[in-house]
């Protein structure tokens, strides 16, 4: 099939996937806290409601920047499954995240601004890992595109177990789960209120939510890369990783940014870096 078709399918279906995932997440979290929890489709109802509401723009720049955020997030996914060079995808992924920081930074509110500063710290912690991860995957499979990795005869996960473990760790940041939800949390119950989304409302918040759903779908696609011999196994692995994230989210408190930065870099260096180094040395 034409890669363009994959790209279009991703842009259309990823929000459905992300929204359903968020719905399952909310039910599972509620049950872990021994609450009944919302219906499965609640994230979609929320999105619909957000789109209906008036958006109060503090700065007219916010909307274009957030459109850039959600647009580039969709573009990252489309490029990923559309067969664009993986390293390039990693940079577009970082760019998409940067748009959110810019949108929050243009707002002249201390909560939003401090949230944006923290999001930068978080990007600094997470992005090097994603570049390292994609570079390592390209290296072991000798391919540079998504389809290339999937059709490669080399199994990625057995070669890069350390990178997969580090991915589980770093995904906590990207999924905005406790203990690493320092820049914004789903519950808006922290010192920064809701961090960098504090001053976004109505459809602006809906864009952020949509971008987050795309982000979950991109992370799922990354996991499939590790299990390049079987896509269902990859999805199953993502489900396991996500379940672990939800469990950890419900069993820890929020960390401080110093710890986030240090621990993520330590994990990236030790697990992922060590894994890649070992591959080179053992060759």
């Amino acid at each position, binding site marked *: 099939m034409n890669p363009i078709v994959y790209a279009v399918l991703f842009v259309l279906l990823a929000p459905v996937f992300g929204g359903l995932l968020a719905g399952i997440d909310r039910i599972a979290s509620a049950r872990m806290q*021994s609450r009944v929890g919302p219906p499965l489709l609640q994230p979609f109802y929320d999105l619909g409601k957000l789109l209906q509401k008036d958006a109060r723009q503090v700065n007219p720049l916010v909307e274009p920047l957030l459109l850039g955020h959600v647009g580039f997030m969709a573009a990252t996914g489309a490029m990923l499954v559309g067969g664009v060079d993986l390293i390039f995808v990693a940079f577009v992924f970082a760019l998409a995240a940067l748009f959110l920081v810019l949108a929050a930074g243009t707002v002249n509110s201390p909560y939003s601004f401090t949230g944006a500063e923290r999001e930068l710290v978080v990007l600094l912690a997470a992005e090097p890992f994603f570049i390292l991860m994609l570079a390592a995957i390209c290296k072991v499979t000798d391919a540079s595109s998504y389809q290339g990795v999937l059709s490669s005869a080399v199994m990625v996960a057995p070669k890069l177990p350390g990178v997969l473990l580090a991915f589980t760790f770093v995904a906590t940041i990207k999924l905005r789960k406790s203990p690493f939800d320092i820049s914004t949390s789903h519950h808006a119950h922290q010192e920064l209120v809701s961090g960098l989304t504090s001053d976004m409302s109505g459809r602006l918040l809906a864009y952020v939510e949509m971008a987050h759903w795309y982000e979950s779908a991109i992370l799922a696609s990354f996991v499939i890369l590790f299990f390049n011999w079987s896509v269902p196994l990859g999805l199953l692995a993502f489900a396991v990783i996500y379940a672990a994230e939800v469990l950890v989210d419900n069993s820890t408190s929020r960390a401080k940014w110093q710890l986030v930065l240090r621990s993520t870099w330590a994990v990236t260096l030790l697990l992922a870096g060590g894994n890649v180094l070992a591959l080179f040395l053992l060759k």
Partner: protein
Amino acid sequence: MANPLRLPMVPRALRNLVSRPATRRYPYEIRPRFEGARGTIEFDVETCNYCMLCMRRCPAAAITVVREDRIWSIEHLTCIGCNVCVEVCNKNSLSMAKESKPVHTHAEVGPQGQRPGHEEWHGPDPAIAAAAKAAAAAT
């Protein structure tokens, strides 16, 4: 420093996941109030002798009694449910029901000008009372 990988909450979270939730789906499932809970004041118009003691002792000034017109009324939104009027009533005309009045969402005006469910009014119809008064004055 404690072992960073030992999270004591994990087993409890997993146990909660498989056991029944502790919360109720509130508007659909309502736990009945316990016996002796303080809810709404109930008034028995038959036994009241309009002594006005409840009106005088009510801390929130929710009760209005007019002895001449034999009117007893209570504003349920002002009532704080302290039970004092029930304690002081000589004729046991007042009692405390354990259920609270549900909140009304539509602004309807009752037949005697009262607000829905929140103002309770016992006494002759104001029009009839006024007519009776006029008749009494005439004779």
